[in-house]
């Protein structure tokens, strides 16, 4: 049951399609959530995650066991996301709030505030240029290390650090800006 990734991959390469189900089970959450945060939209995230797993399956023979399977899988996923983001440039896509974890501890008011806050963050992420968005999500949402991000994006440490620095600044500014706008609306509303 707890076979290692490489054992499962070897079984898949031997023609056992069902063995791939275990790999999907292990990594679907990380892949789906990365896709969701990159695209900001549940439907697209699901399509991209499916496509990513199909691509992973088809290129299993090219998997290099030196890297973690997760890193390799995320590389394929983020590349797909970037391709899709490039294609949809002109279109506007609705943003899902992605809020679904209810622990029952919050009052309805707190829950509303939390939901609003998450929506604001997702909107801010969506506004970032694609090449910055990817680094921010991988580091701060998926908690990956610099080395893993370097493996996924194929960029040098300097570029990864640089992009992450710029991305953090941009996110902070976008959020501060949207906060100010919200306050202005609130003041207008009160008047």
């Amino acid at each position: 049951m707890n076979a290692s990734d490489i054992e499962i991959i070897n079984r898949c390469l031997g023609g056992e399609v069902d063995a791939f189900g275990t790999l999907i089970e292990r990594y679907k959450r990380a892949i789906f959530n990365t896709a969701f945060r990159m695209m900001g939209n549940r439907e697209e995230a699901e399509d991209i995650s499916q496509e990513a797993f199909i691509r992973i399956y088809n290129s299993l023979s090219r998997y290099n066991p030196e890297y973690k399977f997760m890193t390799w899988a995320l590389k394929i996923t983020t590349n797909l996301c970037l391709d899709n983001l490039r294609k949809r440039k002109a279109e506007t896509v609705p943003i899902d709030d992605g809020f679904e974890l209810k622990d029952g501890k919050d009052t309805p008011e707190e829950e509303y505030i939390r939901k609003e806050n998450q929506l604001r963050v997702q909107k801010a992420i969506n506004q970032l240029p694609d090449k910055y968005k990817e680094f921010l999500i991988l580091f701060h949402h998926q908690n990956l290390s610099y080395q893993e991000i370097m493996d996924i994006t194929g960029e040098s440490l300097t570029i990864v650090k640089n992009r992450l620095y710029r991305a953090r600044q941009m996110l902070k500014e976008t959020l501060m800006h949207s906060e100010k706008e919200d306050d202005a609306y609130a003041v207008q509303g009160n008047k």
Partner: protein
Amino acid sequence: MQCRETNDLIMKYFDHDISELEIEMLLKHNEKCPGCALEFDAMKEALSALEELPLLEVPEGFEAKVLESIRMRDAAVNHAQSLVFWLIGILGLIIFACNMMSFVIIPYIRDSGILLIAQNVIIYAVTGVLELLREALVTLSLSVGKLLILRNVLLRDYMDAVMMVVFAFVGMNLLLISKLKLQEDWEGLRNEF
């Protein structure tokens, strides 16, 4: 410590790669510098919000959908592969047949004289058939001539017979008439006496 150095420490802080001493230095600087403190707080708020975004549950049936797509693609690929194998097989067979014809069968036939024999047989058969046709034609025309002659003969005999019957009939009548006349003459003479 300068603000520029603090900026580096802020980044190290969010990289989770900062020592206790460095955190202390950062916080100390922030106490004195409201600009850096604001920068740090705003960044902390933004990144905590990002880090606290919930992990979503993957839609139900996700694995099944992926496995189904993989199986369908595999099936399509297998189908295409088997088609290609069939085509290659048929092509191979055709090439093999052509080679056999041009390098084995035709030279063998040419060298063994079968071709010459076949040619003669065909000529003989054609000549035979033509001969038969000619004979049939001649026999037919002869038969037709004979039939015509026979018809003429029969017609003549028939006419002769008819004429004989007519003459016999006329003769019989004349005989009867003369016999009646004699009888009348006889009765006339007897009455006179």
